[in-house]
């Protein structure tokens, strides 16, 4: 479907007898092509929506990735493994492209080179010049140099059009997987919908950005659990509970997001950082827990089983009053102003840890995540190379996309506990993915895939194997349990 989009673009010019390059914003119409897809090829995965009864400026429906249309939940369809959400009827598109907010699907910020520029229709667009002659007439001089950047904007709008399709007379926009999100602050606990991967560039200037340490997120199939948990948190903290989400139906096969690990990771980092100031005052078990948590987090970025274990120990020790001495040392009057408020931070962090562990313990991974069934160990390093375990479908999907290969078999086998999926990163780029485990015939196998299809380097395979061997030996001798027993916990 061909469509004419009114938009602005930039032209660069130099005046006579001048050296500096100046810019003029111009208006023009761009022709883009939007794909049309047969409804049979695009099955409906979920029907859901997020609503804001008050249309306050801060929360325009246009800023919501999964905003309702006419007060009703919208379909999220799956095409080629990606999610598309219904926006507006095609007939309204001619009008919508003149809208100046994010309800215009062509409005947004784009990165051109190193610059962020906006495209789409603007408030001032009707007054902007259309040609070089108009600019020269208004400036009353002939420009020494003139370079139009129209083609750049045209390319960006064409790219933008690729993330739009027309299905059954409606315009659909490409989004990441929806995730049910508890946004927690001191006044209210809201249930909202966010994109599972915060990569929606069109919304990144909008309100879909979130702070992972204040948001506990769930897959769409866990809406009931999210609401129950949200109500519970609101009741315990005395905040208001607001549900803005309606999930009419969902397809369990199209859910690949689980948010507990993300929240636990965010809380673990914050807790570790806040405790760092106090390590010289801690008692030995707590110091050990801090050190284990710190090591595990830094070596893997996200929480792994050693980090979860350290967090459990921290929570248990804090419960047993291990932090009281630290807090007393901090709160000593005029020598330590603000000590009591920093103590309040410690208490708050321990509360958060408890909540995060609670969410972690009650989660239902359903083969979407398999950290506990897998090796659960932190990454292993060798020079610039780093081997780590892939423990979720989303990671596997991202790797599939990056490699251009289908890794679903590996992920399925790993989630079923038939082996371990190990990625090897070299120079901050993932180069090789290995599967170590038993094949269908029960024999132990090691498969490997590289991003460029060539034979994987020997050292990557060695590192991956070494990682598995180390993790297995650690799993068999769980040091941490012994330590906990030693401290009587």
């Amino acid at each position: 479907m061909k469509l004419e989009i009114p938009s602005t673009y930039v032209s660069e010019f130099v005046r006579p007898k001048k050296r500096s390059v100046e810019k003029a914003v111009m208006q023009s119409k761009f022709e883009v092509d939007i794909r049309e897809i047969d409804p049979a090829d695009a099955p409906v995965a979920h029907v859901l929506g997020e609503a804001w009864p008050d249309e306050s400026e801060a929360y325009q429906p246009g800023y919501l990735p999964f905003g309702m249309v006419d007060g009703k939940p919208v379909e999220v369809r799956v095409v080629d493994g990606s999610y598309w959400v219904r926006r507006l009827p095609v007939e309204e598109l001619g009008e919508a492209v003149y809208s100046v907010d994010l309800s215009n699907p062509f409005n947004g910020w784009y990165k051109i080179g190193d610059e962020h520029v906006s495209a789409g229709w603007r408030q001032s667009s009707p007054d902007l010049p259309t040609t070089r002659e108009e600019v020269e007439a208004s400036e009353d001089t002939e420009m020494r140099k003139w370079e139009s950047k129209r083609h750049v904007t045209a390319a960006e709008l064409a790219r933008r059009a690729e993330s739009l399709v027309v299905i059954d007379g409606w315009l659909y926009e490409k989004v990441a997987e929806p995730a049910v999100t508890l946004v927690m602050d001191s006044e209210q606990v809201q249930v909202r919908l966010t994109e599972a991967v915060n990569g929606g560039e069109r919304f990144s200037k909008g309100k879909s950005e979130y702070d992972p340490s204040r948001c506990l997120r769930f897959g769409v199939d866990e809406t009931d659990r999210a609401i129950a948990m949200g109500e519970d948190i609101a009741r315990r903290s005395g905040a208001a509970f607001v549900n803005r989400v309606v999930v009419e139906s969902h397809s369990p096969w199209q859910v690949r997001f689980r948010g507990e690990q993300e929240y636990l990771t965010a809380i673990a980092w914050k807790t570790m950082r806040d405790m760092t100031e106090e390590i010289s005052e801690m008692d030995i078990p707590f110091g050990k827990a801090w050190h284990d948590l710190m090591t595990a987090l830094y070596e893997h970025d996200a929480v792994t089983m050693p980090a979860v274990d350290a967090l459990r120990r921290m929570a248990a020790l804090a419960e047993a009053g291990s932090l009281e001495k630290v807090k007393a040392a901090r709160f000593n009057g005029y020598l330590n102003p603000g000590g009591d408020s920093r103590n309040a931070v410690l208490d708050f962090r321990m509360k958060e840890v408890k909540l995060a562990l609670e969410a972690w313990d009650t989660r239902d991974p359903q083969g979407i995540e398999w950290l506990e069934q897998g090796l659960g160990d932190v990454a292993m390093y060798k020079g610039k190379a780093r081997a780590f375990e892939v423990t979720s479908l989303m990671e596997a999907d991202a790797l599939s996309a990056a490699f251009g290969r289908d890794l679903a078999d590996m992920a399925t086998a790993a989630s079923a506990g038939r082996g371990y999926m190990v990625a090897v990163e070299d120079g901050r780029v993932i180069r090789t993915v290995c599967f170590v485990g038993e094949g269908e015939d029960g024999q132990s196998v090691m498969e490997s895939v590289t991003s460029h299809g060539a034979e994987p380097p020997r050292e990557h395979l060695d590192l991956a194997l070494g990682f598995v061997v180390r993790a297995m030996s650690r799993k068999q001798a769980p040091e941490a349990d012994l330590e906990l027993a030693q401290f009587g916990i």
Partner: protein
Amino acid sequence: MAVQGGLSAVKLDIEYHYQIVFIPYRHQNERRETGAAHMTLDIREVNPEDAPVVMKVGNPRDTKDEHGRRYMLKEDGSLREIRFFDGNYFVESVPASTLVSDNPKDIANTFFGRAKVRASEDGLYPTRIMTGAEVVRKNSTAATPLRKFVDDKGEAKGEELRKFSRNLIIVDGTTFEFTPEPIVKIGRYGEPEALVMPRPHPKEKHGGSYGFYDLEYGDNKRAALKHADSIRGFAASMPAVEVLDPSRSTFDGASYDTVEACESLMSTLRSSIKSLHWEALEAFYMLRDAFRDSGKRVTPRLVDALYRVSTVSDEADPATVEAVCDRLTPTGHWTGHRPDRIYQAKAEYLKHGGVRWVRETAAEILDRWSLRPAEAYFDVDVPNVSSVSSNGRTASLVLSEGQATDAAIEMGIDPGEVLDAAANGNRILLSEGRHLEPALAALDPDGTIWPISLPEGGDVDKLFGALATALQDDCGEEQDMILSDGEFMP
């Protein structure tokens, strides 16, 4: 004239100097002239039998140290006497007749040297000595009066001198000046030359206000005069020393050195605590806990902890630290040093040698401790938890002759009594706290506590009961944890 205790007093008429401050007419800045005043001081005269000579000392004549010079050999090359009177030590100074000398050169190095402005080599004062009236006459007329004229500093200075003079005694026509107990000390800088020096103040050094003795630099080697041989190995030269009464030379140098060095080692560890690997961090925790329990004493637990620090191994996996740090460090010139990143601190620490310095320092401290004179330490078993604190009071075991003597002198009782109690197989218990009166008691092997000296209204059970119970049980809460590791014993 008779003063207290049947002692006589020598009356000295001395002249002293002070500052006269004034501002002349139409001037803005203060000017000063040196004024002179006279006063009569009473100085105690003591019989030689009441102030016996307990030791003789002689630093080399070329000693530069301000304090060391007080103990240097006399002009004729003979040793300087130290007398003990009324619980204090007094070091031999000039003949009493010199104090009243008009020649500033004579008194330059005496107690009264500070009473007058410093004289030049030829014995002349650099400025004219004036009276207040002279200053007024010289700097003002009736038409141009002084804007400000202050001539009352002489009284304050006189008071100060009177206070000083109480620290002075005269024995057989020779003045003796108050001194803390003279000890042997090896300074840190330059040639490792041992000198006789005053002992550090027992209170101020640890947890007091900032005082004169805080100006000392770290890792000193100190010993009582009678134990001077124990640190002979560290020194290039030793001063001439003769101890006539060993019971008056009891300073516990090994404990002082060890505790001070421990403190500085701990502060070093604290400042790099984020960079330590677990073994080192655990060793730090153990040292910290042992130090808290030990107070100013060196307990076996503290020695164990030091031994553990001295045997901490290097980071097991420096390559991983390096790799994690590399991966975290953002590329680009604008991202410089990020000190909040723990692994960057770790990598930096490894680059500078890691825990090697810490290990070596702990080993040095243990070396110093191993040179202690064994006979000066009580032969008692010390459990892991050897001090009990409550309500700002800490009850602890006394472990050495020096500590017992310090405590006894502070309480004004005879140290011999305490040492006898210790020699009879009792444990000596001390209870002290900041701004609180200390108490001493003896715990006999049956578990009975005998008070030696208590503050007014003090109750033995209240002060020492908890500690005695802990000692009888012979184990504390934390003991199991330490012993479970078991692998380290010096």
